[in-house]
């Protein structure tokens, strides 16, 4: 339907264009998806956290592992300088969010920054960090700025989810203003204040490209902000606006890229969220390191869910103090569907975090739970009285809400799957250890959104099975590749020896 509206809009422009669009229209239909309505949606206010006294910068985040240190213990470092880099990911830097003294051995897996100087806006804006120098022939200045000022880590490849090569050329760029998973920092809230930065960031990003298309993903609703964005970029012929229904996980970049008809073989698809574009603007227009970020703190166990302006490394205890109900909770880095549990050994906000979700731990066991009419529980199925109710935010906790059972072939997982695969079939293959068949059933198309695990009445953890199987398949493939290389090597040496023999 999003396309339909797009088409109608274009119709007004010219019908020659529409013929072209109809021809080029990606045929992939958005399917599946489901909105989980859970209590604790962060409000639209952005609270600025007080300046931290100490920072715990985690060396490991979702994609990165900053193992190569760039600083020594006890040295002072100024704001925006790299503390460490990730050698596995093109040496992407972990920037010091504030000026302070480095302590390396205080906490395992963290770089601690002490004696923090409060952020002085004026100086930070125009002072060009010293470590930026231009090597001709390598990266252009703009690429270099993006990379060194910490904006590059907001980029990801739509198909692999990993960091794209900064030197590479994308086949397309997808920019999403949406965060549909409960709960991540919402794009509209970040845009509300920084719409100018956003449009300027879009221009900056465009200047990095040659001819590749840029897609801007917008919600399929008319809000004041949406109209404003529309107005702002009306003149930008190089940005194609695409509207999608507000349903999880339609903001997933892999799904969007497939929907847009992009192919993984034709090069990376740079994908960014709203904060990424603002970071691009900050790096390229103001030459300012991207150190401040907006995160959401939400979930049923949060007393006043809201957005917060913080920096990486902000102590979690200080951040959550007074925010969480006083009972056993589970703190997640990310949303409820894909977030990871923050353990006791994590002290600070990691650099990629864009939301914390807090859930109550399941303790209370309900009497005759399965017989309850269920006016207060919302379900994908219609087996509860809440079917007659309008959508309402539910107070969910970490309960599994049922016992593990064999698959009863209810087909819910397939209905809800946004990737168009058959989770129940892959489950049956994996249950029988048939990895090749699972591969033929396109387990690789799984985007790990977790919806199949969520709806399964037999409480089978399909997502975990798939992640594990994908890992094994990947390892096997690498093994085969390695063997092939060894074989080739062997052949070459044999041939070499034969040649030597002949010569002798």
């Amino acid at each position: 339907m999003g396309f339909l509206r797009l088409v109608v809009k274009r119709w007004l422009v010219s019908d020659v264009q529409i013929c072209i669009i109809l021809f080029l229209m990606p045929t992939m239909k958005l399917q599946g998806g489901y909105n989980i309505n859970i209590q604790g949606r962060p409000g639209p206010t952005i609270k600025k956290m007080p300046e931290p006294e100490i920072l715990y910068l985690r060396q490991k985040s979702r994609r990165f592992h900053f193992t190569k240190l760039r600083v020594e213990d006890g040295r002072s470092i100024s704001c925006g300088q790299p503390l460490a880099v990730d050698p596995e990911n093109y040496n992407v830097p972990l920037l010091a969010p504030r000026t302070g003294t480095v302590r390396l051995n205080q906490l395992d897996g963290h770089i601690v920054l002490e004696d923090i100087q409060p952020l002085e806006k004026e100086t930070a804006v125009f002072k060009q960090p010293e470590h930026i120098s231009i090597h001709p022939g390598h990266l252009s200045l703009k690429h270099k700025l993006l990379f060194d000022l910490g904006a590059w880590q907001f980029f990801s490849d739509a198909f692999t989810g990993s960091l794209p090569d900064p030197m590479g050329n994308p086949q397309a760029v997808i920019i999403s203003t949406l965060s549909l998973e409960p709960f991540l920092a919402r794009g509209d809230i970040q845009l509300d204040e920084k719409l100018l930065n956003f449009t300027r960031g879009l221009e900056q990003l465009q200047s990095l490209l040659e001819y590749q298309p840029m897609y801007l993903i917008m919600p399929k609703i008319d809000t004041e902000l949406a109209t404003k964005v529309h107005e702002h970029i009306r003149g930008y012929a190089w940005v194609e606006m695409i509207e999608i229904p507000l349903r999880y996980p339609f903001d997933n970049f892999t799904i969007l890229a497939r929907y847009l008809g992009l192919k993984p073989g034709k090069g990376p698809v740079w994908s960014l969220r709203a904060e990424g574009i603002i970071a691009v603007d900050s790096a390229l227009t103001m030459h300012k390191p991207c150190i401040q970020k907006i995160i959401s703190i939400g979930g049923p166990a949060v007393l006043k869910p809201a957005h917060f302006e913080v920096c990486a490394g902000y102590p979690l205890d200080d951040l959550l103090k007074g925010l969480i109900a006083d009972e056993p909770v589970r703190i997640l880095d990310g949303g409820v569907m894909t977030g990871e549990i923050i353990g006791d050994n994590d002290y600070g906000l990691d650099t990629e975090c864009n939301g914390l979700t807090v859930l109550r731990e399941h303790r209370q066991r309900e009497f005759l739970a399965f017989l309850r009419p269920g006016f207060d529980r919302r379900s994908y199925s219609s087996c509860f009285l809440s079917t007659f109710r309008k959508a309402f935010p539910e107070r969910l906790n970490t309960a599994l809400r049922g016992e593990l059972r064999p698959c009863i072939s209810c087909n819910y997982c397939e209905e809800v799957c946004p990737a168009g695969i058959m989770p129940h079939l892959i489950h049956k293959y994996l249950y029988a250890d048939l990895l090749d068949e699972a591969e033929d059933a396109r387990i690789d198309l799984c985007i790990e959104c977790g919806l199949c695990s969520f709806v399964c009445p037999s409480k089978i953890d399909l997502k975990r099975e798939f992640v594990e199987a994908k890992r094994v398949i990947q390892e096997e493939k690498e093994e085969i590749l390695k063997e092939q290389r060894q074989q080739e090597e062997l052949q070459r040496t044999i041939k070499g020896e034969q040649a030597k023999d002949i010569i002798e």
Partner: protein
Amino acid sequence: MKSLFKLFERAKPLFEDGGRFRPFKPVFDALENFFFGPATTTTAAPHIRDPLDVKRFMSMVIVALIPVLLASFYFFGLRLITMLVVSYAVGGAVEVLFAVIRKEEINEGFLVTGMLFPLILPPTLPLWMVAIGVAFGVFVGKELFGGTGRNIFNPALVGRCFLAIAYPVAMSSNWVTPGSGFTGRLFEYISASDVDALTSATPLVLAKQGTLTELSRLFFGNISGSVGETSSLAVILGGVFLLLTRTANWRTVVSTLGSFALLAAILRVNDPERFAPVLWHLCAGSILFGAFYMTTDPVTSPVTNSGKWLYGMIIGFATVLIRNFTGYVEGVMFAILLGNIFAPVLDEIIFKLRLRRLALEE
């Protein structure tokens, strides 16, 4: 409630490793999780889960059977209670036995099988036959395949099929004339010895002999027949509930009834003298009961939606053919079992087609 919980907590160590009743842990777990929602939590993303579980899913079928049960009590009396008790006791015992031997959990599937089974039997069937039938159905139809979720055939139908072949006379001649008036047979207990209340023919038998029962009687259910099948009204009420809760898939039902009606209509148009009208056929016998409660069993029907359409067609067509062209007067049971055989094959074909389409996608 609290004292019950404490009782469970106190008894728990007896069923843990090293406890005296360790082999009966499945029974204890089943009871505990029946009364109290399970204590398990998620361990990784997604951290929250949908409230629907298999218990709820299966109890929806039981709720949907309430109108059928009420109609059955009204028309055929209280003997149904003893049949239900026997069916649940014997079926449950087989299920528990296998859970203990296999050291697996007790599955909720037998709650549905135990209730469906008496509803598809003649109301005066000796109780020992009910026991043998349900034991055979659960044992051969389900446990041998590995339990709920892995069975190919509907266990209740396997049990009935066994009885129909082993005791053909008891299964086809002793019907009860339905109750009427304000209370019906609500306070009566009719067994095979009450000769006054017995009749030897159901509407389908009578139809073969040339007399058509009125459609309104078929619709409300004051006819003789298997316990639960007679009242089309009650079956439709419960069936619609199943469809609305999405416990049953509408595709299977529409396809089964649609193809049944289509073939019946074709026959009727060709030879109105010989074949009964479509609506009459729909309300007679157990086609409605089978379509709503038996074909829609998610485990034994195809998973894929296209598979469900084909599956329904096989059952619908087969029922009409068996009813009209064989020595049997009713064909629903055989048709559904036939459909069960086809279900995995249909799925396999649809999987192949869909995987071929998926393979084209980069």
